[in-house]
């Protein structure tokens, strides 16, 4: 059967993985290529890499680090940050990624989703969303608003309307990233994760807030997500205790969540 996925998230600054809290105060963790190699050996299911400064600094994505990571990772590898055009996407794919994550840029220019899906297939385009609960009000029927630019700018878009539109335009996966929960280790926002999973037919990825095995299990069951993005639990220096991929998977399998089993050798 199709198993659920654990995806390690890299917020990359100058070739190094960092860890933020509610999209701020990034602290240094490790060189991206080294951490990628270690997680690959631990049999992580997938890695997603965000060049978190590319957009704000109005520069191209750090292709050198993308290449360095791709050399070590023989599991799926998604890259995002500073992607504006089809040519940007092509450069990233040529560097060894197989999926492109679009976020703020897709809100500014939704056609990038359609163009990417037409050029490279919809499986290649991951729509990542930063969402925050603002209360139900006219124009915001779900109560969740989409933010962009590192959670700094409110868009007025309703989260459910936006993910439906993204799916129609050709997104092959949707990441639901809770701004309130990011880096807090207090659990995914299950309400919006489940609402998005109900609203679209493509796979949905829970993100923001996983601090324990229970949080991950909840995201993949009550939250109805097909995959869980984790980072703090693996390597945040803010947590007293980090857990390894194998430990997490064994604990999830014990809780009845179908996971790819660890392969010896």
């Amino acid at each position, binding site marked *: 059967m199709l198993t659920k996925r654990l995806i390690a998230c890299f917020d990359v600054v100058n070739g190094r993985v960092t860890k933020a809290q509610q999209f701020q105060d990034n602290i240094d963790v490790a060189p991206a290529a080294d951490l990628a190699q270690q997680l690959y050996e631990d049999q992580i*299911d997938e890695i997603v890499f965000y060049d978190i400064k590319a957009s704000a600094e109005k520069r191209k994505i750090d292709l050198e680090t993308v290449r360095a990571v791709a050399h070590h990772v023989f599991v799926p590898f998604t890259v995002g940050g500073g992607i504006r055009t089809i040519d940007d996407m092509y450069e990233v794919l040529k560097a060894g990624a197989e999926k492109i994550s679009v976020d703020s840029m897709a809100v500014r220019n939704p056609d990038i989703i359609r163009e990417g899906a037409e050029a490279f297939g919809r*499986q290649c385009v991951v729509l990542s969303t930063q969402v925050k609960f603002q209360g139900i009000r006219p124009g915001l029927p779900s109560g969740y608003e989409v933010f962009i630019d590192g959670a700094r700018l409110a868009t007025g878009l309703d989260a459910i309307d936006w993910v439906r539109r993204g799916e129609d335009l050709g997104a092959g996966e949707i990441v639901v990233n809770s701004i309130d929960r990011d880096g807090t280790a207090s659990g995914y926002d299950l309400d919006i994760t489940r609402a998005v999973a109900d609203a679209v037919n493509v796979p949905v990825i829970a993100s923001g807030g996983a601090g324990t095995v229970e949080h991950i299990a909840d995201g993949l069951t009550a939250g109805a997500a097909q995959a869980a993005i984790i980072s703090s639990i693996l390597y945040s220096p803010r947590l007293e205790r980090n857990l390894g991929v194998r430990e997490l998977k064994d604990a999830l399998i014990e809780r009845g969540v179908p996971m790819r089993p660890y*392969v010896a050798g």
Partner: protein
Amino acid sequence: MIGVIDYRAGNAPSVGYALERLGLTHRLVATADQLDGVERIILPGVGAAQATIDSLRESGLVEPLAARVHDDRVPFLGICIGLQVLFEHSEEGDVDCLGWVPGRVRRFSDTLRVPQIGWNAVRVTRAHPVTDGLGHDAYCYFVNSFFADPADPADALGVTEYGQEFCSIVARGNVVATQFHAEKSGPVGLALLERFARWDGTC
């Protein structure tokens, strides 16, 4: 020397990195003359059937590929869309494909979450040099909205469940193909690539 077919919608670099890790020499093949002298061929793929077929036609690779595979009997490995385009026809864009393997490519039911994305179990149905040692229920990484339905069940070397059982490995003569991304299926996938690199194309 392994020739890896390189086209815009493909993911030849990922396959190249995997071969490098295994210490296997390869070269990217974007034109027909680059097929000369390669001892085996990999057709990787992501994306849509139409884009892949168009890209192969525009590069003038369709006939030279067929000549190397069918006349010279060079061992061939298709990956993902590189499996689907081997069939006669794909429902994706209603496109005629290479027709090397009898059968059609169909869409998963709308009742399923599509694309299928993630690690799923592959059950090998018979002995074959490329899959020997893959183990029972080997988990591999899939990304697909469509699946191959071979006309001859004997062409299905591996099967996987997603809503229904579908063919996840094709084997016909010196041609093998995986619906999953062998280059992205961790140690299991790398081991399959290594066995393909040692295979003489017979079984």
